[in-house]
């Protein structure tokens, strides 16, 4: 076993433990922000380690964890998200009363959970990864101790999350009972060509569990409430990290374990995708709170991303990765502006964004750019991601054409509420004309994310080329 392949996880785990020890060893008076700086340096090391092993392949612990392009790519996404979250949280944590040391290491354990989830190729490991991620997220969501909404969000997330994981586990138990293994590749081998109703039932339960993590529509109830109540940096982390982890493991599960049942699950997922994007977009239309708006937009985006899984080909898988990469930057950028605005005014209402153009042109421009990327306007990353998702679906053909048309109509609907925010910022007169300050650190984060949104324009081809080399795609059952 090549330990070097595990180095990103080892770095993150050690970092989390060191921060935990530091948190209780440092006297109460010491500013915990220094821990954030320390964590950032550690995360950069983890990022470098991940980039160093990029392109390598291997298996760890006798096949429990897979190191391949899929997992490495998602690990880079997660580490980038965590770095951005630390940058965003730096000023935000001023408002959190009491100890804030927990925030740093809980973010890191959540990161570790995501990394394990994305890499695991076996049911028990998937379970451990998802639970490590979720158990870190519950207290993160509720970390505003005195805040009623935050506690309530944590409670709802906890109850629904545990319920989903219990349902998932029952599905996993059935799967184990029918195939006698928990290894994804061996499940595919043990499955054969046809499956009985019990197997479909198990698969359905697994889908429900993952659907919860990804925020697909019948299982989305927690998303708006949790996103609204959670501290905004945590919301950004949830929207990007937790969802990407869900998609990473879902992609691996569906592509590796269930190719034989494709004809059946593609229909289920198709229905879920249509429900998810339509409901997400329609509900987003009537939101007045920007965090809730972004929550429903996150639901709609989960619907689009699902198309990549349904297309079940190399283009689809590459498209999901590219799409989530663009989504990471656009979403974090949008949340950065929300945090900057809330830090200055304490408001999260869209109506209060009126005239932001005059009060702080930089913030308004960044938010507009990120929202347009989310909506999928041509020169931005979001557009290419969507394009690639649609191309994958068209490659598969059949009724997926209908799916693409529905998704395109949905994109048009989504334009309404994104443009509405931009109109509020640029055309409506401000109620309060004073200049709105944002901290240099937030501005720096914004520059990074906006650069991410724009740069894909130039790195589009090489990135897709690298994604095409993914080993998921070289599998024999993909044509």
């Amino acid at each position, binding site marked *: 076993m090549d330990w070097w392949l595990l180095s990103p996880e080892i770095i993150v785990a050690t970092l989390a*433990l060191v921060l*935990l*020890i530091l948190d209780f*060893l440092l006297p109460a008076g010491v500013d915990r922000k220094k821990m954030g700086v320390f964590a950032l340096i550690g995360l950069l090391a983890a990022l470098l380690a991940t980039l160093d092993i990029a392109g390598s392949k291997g298996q760890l612990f006798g096949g429990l964890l897979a190191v391949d392009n899929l997992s490495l790519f998602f690990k880079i996404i997660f580490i980038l998200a965590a770095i951005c979250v630390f940058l965003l949280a730096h000023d935000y944590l001023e408002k959190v009363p009491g100890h804030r040391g927990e925030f740093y290491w809980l973010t890191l354990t959540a990161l570790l959970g995501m990394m394990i989830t994305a890499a695991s190729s076996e049911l028990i490991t998937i379970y451990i990864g998802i639970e490590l991620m979720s158990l870190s997220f519950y207290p993160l969501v509720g970390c505003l101790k005195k805040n009623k909404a935050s506690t309530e969000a944590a409670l709802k997330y906890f109850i629904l999350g545990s319920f989903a994981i219990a349902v998932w586990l029952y599905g996993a138990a059935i799967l184990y009972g029918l195939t006698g293994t928990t290894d994804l590749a061996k499940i595919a081998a043990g499955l054969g060509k046809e499956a009985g109703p019990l197997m479909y039932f198990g698969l359905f339960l697994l889908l429900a569990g993952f659907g919860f993590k990804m925020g697909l529509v019948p299982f989305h109830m927690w998303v708006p409430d949790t996103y609204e109540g959670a501290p905004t940096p945590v919301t950004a982390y949830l929207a990007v990290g937790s969802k990407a982890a869900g998609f990473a493991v879902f992609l691996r599960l569906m592509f590796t374990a269930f190719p034989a049942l494709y004809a059946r699950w593609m229909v289920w997922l198709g229905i879920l995708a249509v429900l998810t994007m339509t409901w997400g977009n329609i509900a987003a239309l009537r939101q007045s709170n920007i965090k809730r708006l972004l929550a429903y937009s996150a639901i709609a985006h989960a619907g689009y991303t699902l198309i990549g899984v349904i297309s079940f080909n190399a283009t689809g898988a590459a498209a999901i990765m590219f799409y989530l990469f663009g989504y990471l930057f656009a979403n974090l950028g949008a949340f950065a502006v929300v945090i900057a605005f809330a830090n200055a005014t304490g408001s999260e209402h869209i109506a209060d964004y009126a005239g932001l153009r005059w009060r702080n042109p930089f913030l308004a421009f960044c938010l507009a750019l990120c929202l347009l990327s989310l909506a999928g306007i041509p020169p931005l990353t979001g557009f290419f991601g969507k394009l690639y998702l649609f191309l994958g679906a068209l490659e598969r053909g059949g009724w997926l054409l209908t799916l693409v048309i529905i998704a395109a109509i949905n994109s048009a609907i989504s334009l309404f509420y994104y443009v509405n925010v931009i109109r509020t910022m640029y055309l409506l007169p401000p109620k309060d004309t004073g200049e709105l300050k944002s901290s240099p650190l937030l501005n720096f984060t914004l520059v990074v994310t906006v650069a991410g949104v724009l740069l894909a324009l130039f790195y589009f081809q090489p990135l897709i080329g690298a994604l095409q080399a993914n080993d998921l795609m070289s599998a024999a059952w993909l044509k």
Partner: protein
Amino acid sequence: MPDFFVLAFYAVLGLGMAAVIILLNWFVAPRTLATARRNTPYECGDPPLGSGWVAYHIRYYIFALLFVVFDVEAIFLFSWVAVFKTLGLWGFIEVAIFIVILVIGLLYAWKKGVLRWI
């Protein structure tokens, strides 16, 4: 099968013991009239304060919470002990890492003042 007889023997013995003690108590105890004072719950001779149906102090939950986690993690130690010889030194190192992480958790709780009874 004999194992089960042993089990059954002890089960009957245990139940019988409890029954005998209760019956003995019933025979030996002096009989007095049921007065209001007699029916009050016994609290070391003092008149009882408040109802017996009080919510437990929140601190019990915190102890319970810590106890449950550390208690259950011991499962992994049992399964490790069962295959101690086959795993050898490497297994020992892994379990040591596991325990160190648990101890860090305990230290954390300690430092945060959870174990102090105020």
